[in-house]
Structure formats: C-alpha cells, structure tokens
C-alpha cells in the first residue's frame, strides 16, 4: 500500500487539468507531479521566477543560476521561461495560477489557513505563501490529517497566525478530500476502508456529508 504522502499527492494530481498552471510547495506538494495521469500536462511555476519547471537535474547537470522555490537546483522543460520576482508574483496575485498546492499546519471551517509560523518557535517567514493563497484560483492544502500526537489539524478555528483568510478551496489528507464551501466543510471523498465516522472523529468541525461520498484513489 502506498504511504500517506503518496496517497495525498496522487489524489491532488487527479484534480489537475491538462494545461493548468500550478505552483507546488515544498514537501508533499512536490510529489504531485509524480502522479499526473497520462495526457495531463501541467506547467509548473516557480515563484522565484520561472514557468516550466521539470524534474530535478542530476547533480552534474545543475545550473548555478537556476533553482526552485526551495533553493534546490532545478531544470526547465522546453517552453520554459524566466522572469523577475515582481513579474512572478504578478502571475500569482493576478489570478493566473490555476492551482497552488501547499502544506498546512491548521485549516479551519471558514477556509482559513495557518502554515507559516508557530509563535516562539518556527519563524522561517512566509516566503511566497501569503501571495499564493491570496492569488491562486484553487488553493489545495496537502497535509496529514492529524498531528503526530493525533490532535486534529482541521479545526473550528485556527489558533496559529494565519497565512490567509477564507482562502482554502480543498483539503487533501491521507484520510479524505474536503471542499470548503460557504456553508462549511464538505466531505468529497474518503480513503478506501475508512468510514465517515473515522474521518469525523479526527476532524474538529462537523463535516457536511453529501449523499454520495467518493472513494479516494490508492
């Protein structure tokens, strides 16, 4: 059986459409490009200034002038383009990204996202995350459903400083796929073998459960 990270990435990959422009964050989001169905070509955007990111180069092929948004050596596919940071964020802020996929520490029932700061602890800075969630047409949060100690990460109200207010479109965990609607969180799909109750028990807000809930891809 595939691991949680791959399951999350695969189910997100299935949401993308041929021709989409997508920004993938560090971690689980990066894995999404491994699971794109045949015939679905997405263009990957690097917020440090490029479109057309491809698979990472071999160390000996690395170009010192080309990195991804994580600072790692990167490569461009044919048709790639480079531009300055103002232009890169004009793409993001201007609504030209079909989707951004990023990690989450907390998401709540209003679609608020916290993923950039734990006061007194992790102070890496928000980088491009606030722009991405404010600008992308779809904001897909890829994260494990609960924290290591089992506490819900999908909450009634985020407790950490927010990255964006009401920005999340979809949450994908190893347990389920949730869409954020104006009425609350709608359970769209659950992992094979799990029940709605399994998911609800690890989720703080009461989920809206439609008549038909799909089964996640394995």
């Amino acid at each position, binding site marked *: 059986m595939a691991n949680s990270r791959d399951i999350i990435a695969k189910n997100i990959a299935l949401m993308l459409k041929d021709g989409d422009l997508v920004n993938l964050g560090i971690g689980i989001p990066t894995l999404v490009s491994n699971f794109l169905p045949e015939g679905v070509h997405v263009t990957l955007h690097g917020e440090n*200034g490029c479109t057309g990111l491809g698979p990472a180069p071999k160390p000996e092929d690395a170009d010192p002038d080309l*990195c991804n948004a994580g600072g790692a050596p*990167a490569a461009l596919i044919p048709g790639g383009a480079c531009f300055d*940071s*103002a232009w*890169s964020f004009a793409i993001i*802020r201007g609504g030209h990204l079909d989707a951004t996929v990023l990690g989450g520490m907390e998401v709540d029932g209003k679609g608020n996202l916290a993923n950039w700061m734990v006061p007194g602890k992790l102070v890496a*800075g928000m980088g491009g995350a606030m*722009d991405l969630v404010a600008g992308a047409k779809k904001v897909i949060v890829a994260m494990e459903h609960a924290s290591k100690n089992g506490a819900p990460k999908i909450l009634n109200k985020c407790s950490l400083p927010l990255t*964006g207010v009401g920005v999340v479109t979809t949450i994908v965990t190893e347990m389920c796929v949730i869409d954020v609607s104006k009425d609350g969180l709608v359970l769209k799909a659950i992992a094979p073998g799990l029940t709605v109750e399994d998911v609800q028990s690890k989720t703080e807000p009461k989920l809206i459960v439609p008549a038909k809930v799909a089964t996640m891809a394995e």
Partner: protein
Amino acid sequence: MNKVISKEAALDKIKDGQTLMIGGFAAVGTPASIIAGIVERKIGNLTIIANDTGFPDKGIGLLVVAKLVKKMHCSHIGTNPETIRQFNAGELEIEFNPQGTLAERMRAGGAGIAGFYTPTGVGTVIADGKETKDFNGKTYLLETALHAEVSIVKAHKADKFGNLVFRRTAKNFNPLIATAGDIVIAEVEEIVEIGDIDPDEVMLPGIYVDYIVKA
C-alpha cells in the same frame, strides 16, 4: 562612458549604517564578491532589504554571521539557522514581508508609485496597523514603496554603459532593486563593449546602473 570600477572602489561607496538592497534568492543571483568585501571590511550596522538571508556560508547569510546586519526586511529566513538564532535572541530585527509584496514594494520604490493595494496578507498579522480598502467588494491592503541608499545587483553580463543581462532564476529581485537604490552597483560575470548587447536583449537598461564590478 565606462562605469567599470574596481571592487575596492565599489566597496568605498558602501558605508556603515546604510540601507542596502541586495539581489538574490537562496544565494542564487547574489553578488558574492561585494558581499565578501563587505565582510572583509566589516561594514556594519546595516539595514538589508532582500528576499532571504541565504545560508550561513553563502549569500547574504555571510553578512548575518559576521553580525553586520542590524535589521532585515525579507520574506524568509528558514535556510539560515544563524538568522533564526539572532532573531530569536533579539540581536537582529526582522520585518517579514510576503515575497510578492516585497518584490512589488521594491518595484514601486523605483517606479514612483507611493503605495499599492494588494490582496496578500489581508486578515493576517501582516495587515496589523496597515490601511485596507475595498475594491469591487474585495478587501485589499495598502503597502508602500521601499528605497535603498545602495542597491547591489548581480547580473550575468553588462556592457560598459551598464545595460544588464541576467540568467535563469538568478534574475529574481535584481532588476527591481536596481531601480530603487540611490546608488546602484552591479557585480557581473562578463563585461562587454557598448553595442555588444542588442537593445532587445537588455533586461535592465544601463541608465539605472552607476558602477560595474567584475565578479
């Protein structure tokens, strides 16, 4: 016109206590020679406006490790544990900016735009103390222009007039900061004659550049 000067002459333009903009993203497209020179000369008490602080041994991180930085305006410090340490210890002041807001504030500084309304950061701590305004039913945050006393740019190629060509993602913040500094120093890998760069190849017009230094 020939704007090429020595690294030492360029370093003479940078003074203790100044506000500097420095190009680069995770040390890609960062002016390494000038940074090494600042460390060597111990030009300190600096306010730096840049995306990040690179790594402890690479990029702007070298200035942080050498304790030459008083304040950072940046979007991210996660790649440099020493920056995080100094920040947590209260030794270094940091103003975090969303990366796109930072880029746009630099551009605004160079473009004579005093402020602009962005959707980024509305409802977050970034909005604290800032004005908001609604346009077509959506709330936007007012962000203001940034300027520097000296902007230090890294480019791939320059002609002697200062027309610059960048490569790949080493472009990043460099063209922007070149527009927003009172003095602009470009560190470049290759210097060619005026006329050797086609007008359509120029990525930053030489009118912005005051001094050129060979990397």
